[in-house]
């Protein structure tokens, strides 16, 4: 996941013919929201900062901010409901504010004021409009003007392919509207209404009048209004006006106030805050009335420009107890985590830029003078753990324990870190360790217990560590339960041992926990064993195992219906043709095995040996990778992954059972046509064996166009050509099979 453009830049990025694609994100589609990182921002930092919790791309939790037209829908309804009285139905307000057209609001306003007799159809049942109260009239008067502003203030982003609806009318004459807004603003006595008209007029000035006018109107009136969300919405337009005038100092100062004052506008401030030169930035700092305002600016710099180190230093110097440090610390730790190998979790201590961050966190932790001292100790301990300094980590956690806040999440975070430390520092996974970690492990791995702390990364880490230790101690069953690995299934003894463990009655509490971690089920193992013995032509055992699997399984791979007729044998393998062809009898794994066994029995009894041998050979052929019934071997064990090799359990390509029965058919064949067919089928088997050895099981040759196998003449081809060229089958084969045709013409 290589990223070369900063997050802030990505948000505003349009393409460049020069840049092209592919360099912004080296692999798209693999969305990483950062939640696998262990140091949990949700536990330490205020939720209002959640868009800025560390995520490798864009905003945490929701990606991109596309709420430009809908951000205040909820709060508008709530504000008006408060103004109009708690009995006002929300649904009516939602309709009027968000859906009703300008014309219908005008009609409703006329009706409420007694000037019109009929309400628009869509509003006839509205309780609000039938009251005729003063406040309702004031609301509708306001709303009728507010709707008029949508022509320039709304983006209509939902119609993205519609150019005209996005386009703000450059010829819009705002004078009549502004004059009406000004009039209502001046006359309004109610502070709620007055502030809303103030906002509307400020926004209209921003879009339709000079930037200076918007600034003056904001600044000459702002002192009388409460510092609520609407105040900061208004201020954001004044900030934008400063930005238009290229007064970045003032624009950024205002954006910092907007960022700090309104949670809903934090992402907007992030998008807009943009110092151009160092002088702008210094001048903005100089405008700050107090240290808290400076701290906000430093937090914005740290988060938006990813210089957490500098921000932490500056904020700590201004006020060590500032809660704004918390977000920065979580980001700093998450960024270090992100660069570490997910499997090893190791940091070798060689990166100077990481080291200086780690040293700073350590220094602040030691001073114990922040508002969440336990958090700093946990961060230090956590980073020590990555450096394999488990004793120091334990000491940090002990310090953290003494200073824990009452926050549940903080306690949980410490519990997770201590558990990781205990496991990571243990020389081996013996009974003593198992006993020590059992309660915490049960808590961590039980999904039914709700937790505030992140557990995904820690769970993977702990399971991986335990699996590694058990593997080293030759306790492969425990290892496989904690971390599934294909290699394990290559030996049937392992599977039997695992089955015994899973079936064991009276497991110890630790064994019970271990068995619950196993990724697969008993029926998966039985199904896999049944499939394996099928290829050894042991159909009795295959049937017995498959029956057992079916009896345990609900709906699973064991009950899959095979798509084509597995007894078909073609000149050319064509799975799609077989799958599309009409089929009287549909087979699943078990019914196929039983039918094959039936044929085997008939062959033994000497009944119609040629036909039964041919059909049985076709079935053995079709259940391999080359045949039309690949679904036969598809099961959960095959889908597992190994860290050593992705496909240790390679798709079955064993041709021996098919060869056995084609050869048998050949031996009893009476006509040349029958014999010709047997030779051709045997040639196919020979070809498949060649590919299996040369291509499938030879990883060097895969995907290499330079290493394609040469044209080869199979034994079956030779025999066909020399002995059976007079048969109808031969002619058919020449017509259907280009490979064979080429051979015959050589």
């Amino acid at each position, binding site marked *: 996941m290589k990223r070369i453009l*900063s997050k802030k830049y990505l948000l505003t990025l349009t393409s460049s*013919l020069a*840049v092209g694609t592919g360099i912004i994100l080296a692999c798209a589609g693999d969305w990483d929201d950062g939640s696998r990182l262990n140091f949990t921002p949700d536990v330490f930092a205020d939720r209002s900062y959640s868009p800025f919790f560390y995520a490798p791309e864009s905003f945490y939790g929701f990606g991109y901010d596309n709420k430009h037209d809908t951000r205040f829908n909820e709060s508008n309804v709530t504000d008006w409901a408060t103004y109009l009285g708690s009995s006002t139905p929300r649904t009516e307000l939602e309709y009027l504010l968000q859906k009703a057209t300008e014309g219908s609001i005008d009609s409703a306003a006329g009706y409420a004021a007694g000037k019109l007799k009929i309400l628009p159809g869509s509003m006839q049942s509205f309780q609000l409009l039938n009251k005729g109260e003063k406040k309702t009239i004031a609301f509708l008067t306001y709303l009728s003007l507010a709707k008029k502003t949508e022509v320039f203030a709304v983006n209509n982003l939902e119609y993205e392919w519609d*150019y005209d609806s996005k386009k703000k009318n450059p010829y819009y004459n705002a004078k009549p509207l502004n004059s009406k807004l000004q009039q209502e603003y001046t006359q309004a006595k109610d502070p709620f209404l007055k502030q809303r008209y103030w906002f509307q007029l400020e926004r209209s000035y921003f879009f339709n009048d000079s930037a200076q006018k918007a600034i003056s109107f904001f600044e000459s009136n702002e002192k009388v209004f409460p510092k609520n969300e609407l105040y900061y919405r208004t201020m954001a337009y004044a900030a934008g006006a400063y930005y238009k005038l290229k007064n970045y100092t003032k624009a950024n100062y205002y954006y910092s106030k907007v960022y700090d004052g309104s949670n809903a506008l934090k992402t907007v401030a992030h998008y807009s805050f943009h110092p151009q030169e160092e002088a702008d930035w210094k001048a903005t700092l100089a405008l700050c009335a107090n240290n808290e305002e400076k701290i906000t600016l430093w937090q914005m710099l740290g988060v938006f*420009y990813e210089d957490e180190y500098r921000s932490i230093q500056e904020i700590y110097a201004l006020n060590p107890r500032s809660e704004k440090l918390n977000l920065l610390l979580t980001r700093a730790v998450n960024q270090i985590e992100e660069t570490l190998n997910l499997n090893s979790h190791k940091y070798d201590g060689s990166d100077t830029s990481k080291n200086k961050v780690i040293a700073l966190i350590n220094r602040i932790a030691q001073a114990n003078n922040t508002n969440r001292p336990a958090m700093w100790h946990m961060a230090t301990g956590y980073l020590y753990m990555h450096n394999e300094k488990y004793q120091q980590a334990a000491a940090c956690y002990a310090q953290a324990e003494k200073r824990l806040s009452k926050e549940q999440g903080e306690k949980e975070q410490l519990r997770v870190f201590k558990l990781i430390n205990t496991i990571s520092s243990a020389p081996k996974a013996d009974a003593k360790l198992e006993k020590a970690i059992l309660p915490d492990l049960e808590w961590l791995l039980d999904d039914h217990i709700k937790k505030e702390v992140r557990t995904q990364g820690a769970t993977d880490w702990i399971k991986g560590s335990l699996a590694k230790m058990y593997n080293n101690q030759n306790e492969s069953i425990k290892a496989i339960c904690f971390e599934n690995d294909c290699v394990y299934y290559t030996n049937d003894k392992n599977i039997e041992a695992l089955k015994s463990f899973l079936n064991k009655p009276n497991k110890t509490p630790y064994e019970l926990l271990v068995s619950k971690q196993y990724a697969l089920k008993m029926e998966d193992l039985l199904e896999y064993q049944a499939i394996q013995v099928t290829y050894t032509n042991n159909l009795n055992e295959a049937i017995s195992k498959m029956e057992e699997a079916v009896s345990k399984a609900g709906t699973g791979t064991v009950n899959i219906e095979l798509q084509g007729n597995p007894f078909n044998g073609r000149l050319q393998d064509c799975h799609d043709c077989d799958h599309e062809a009409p089929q009287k009898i549909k087979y699943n794994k078990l019914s196929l095995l039983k039918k094959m066994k039936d044929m085997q029995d008939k062959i033994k009894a000497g009944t119609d040996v040629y036909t039964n041998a041919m059909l049985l050979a076709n079935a053995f052929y079709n259940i391999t990778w080359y045949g039309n019934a690949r679904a036969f071997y598809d099961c959960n064990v095959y889908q597992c992954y190994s860290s050593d090799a992705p496909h240790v359990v390679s798709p079955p390509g064993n041709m021996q059972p098919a060869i056995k029965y084609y050869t048998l058919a050949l031996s009893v064949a009476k006509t040349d046509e029958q014999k010709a067919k047997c030779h051709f089928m045997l040639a196919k088997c020979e070809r498949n064996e060649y590919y299996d050895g040369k291509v499938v099981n030879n990883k060097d040759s895969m995907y290499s166009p330079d290493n394609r196998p040469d044209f080869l003449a199979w034994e079956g081809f030779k025999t066909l050509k020399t002995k059976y060229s007079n048969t109808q089958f031969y002619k058919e084969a020449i017509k259907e099979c280009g490979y064979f045709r080429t051979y015959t013409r050589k």
Partner: protein
Amino acid sequence: MKKYWGPLLFFVLLLAACQQPVHKRPVSFYFWKTQFALNRFEQNVLREHAVDTLYVRYFDIDYKPEATQPTPVSPIRLDSSITHYKVVPVIFIKNRTFDRLQAADIPTLAANVLHLIDQINKSQHLTTREIQFDCDWTETTRDHFFQFIREYQSISKQKISSTIRLHQVKYKERMGIPPVDHGVLMYYNIGAINGDNTNSIYERSVANRYNSYIRSYPLSLDVALPVFSWGLQMRNGQVIDLLNKINFTQFENDSNFTILTSNRYQVKHACFKAGYYFQPGDEIKNEHVPADDLLEITTQINKNTNHRIGKLIFYDLDSTNLIQYETDIIKKVLTNAD
């Protein structure tokens, strides 16, 4: 009176000889900003070289991870000065769009694109007769991209061109040939953007790996030439940002930066500069294509195509790019290309 005709005729002939040579090859520019407006400098460049056609980026198309369909990104705003030129709309399609797009949804996308171009044209009463698609398609997306082109062709009945990157020329068997009327060979962005000692925009040794394949490419080709520059901002050996449209001399006169080499600067103190933020230790590398390299590119292209190349299109029309060259650079390149 008659006796004066001789010298006069000579003088007229002399004047004619002094006039600009008529170049065989037409020249054009890409316009790659979201608001169409040209400053005096840019207008002069177009007039001086008799440029009558502009390749104008209309919008991008992206299929963002959180989106449920591909959407246009930053459609251009035109002003009336665009009507002085013939316009070829260029649509940049992010490759990941075709990774996610289902084949069944290709006709809808084509119709949406046609409709949006039509609306943009209507905003200035423009008529366009050709369209260019710019997509760094890959083996996995080529079928959908090509299908999209066919679909667009069937509903628009317009001439369609496509940008072609050098690797798509070299590996044409795998990458396929887009079903377009002609291509524009993007003769730049050939190296990895990693801040090493090679130039990611143009490096002769890298280009040489591709040159011999141009001749056999089965589409007639125009050529896009790079006259842009950018800065690479690097931290801990990784490129973290591209600094576009930036004047590098400003780093030389700022005590927050030290000069490492002729095209590299290092940040001494954290600071904002030109709208970008720099941390101590960051490195900035200036990459651009010097005049000599532009001439070399045209020499190579002629050599490798038997002069069978169409127009030259410079990327991109912006005075901040062009002032970095001598004023006669376009003429020199054209003369060299003839």
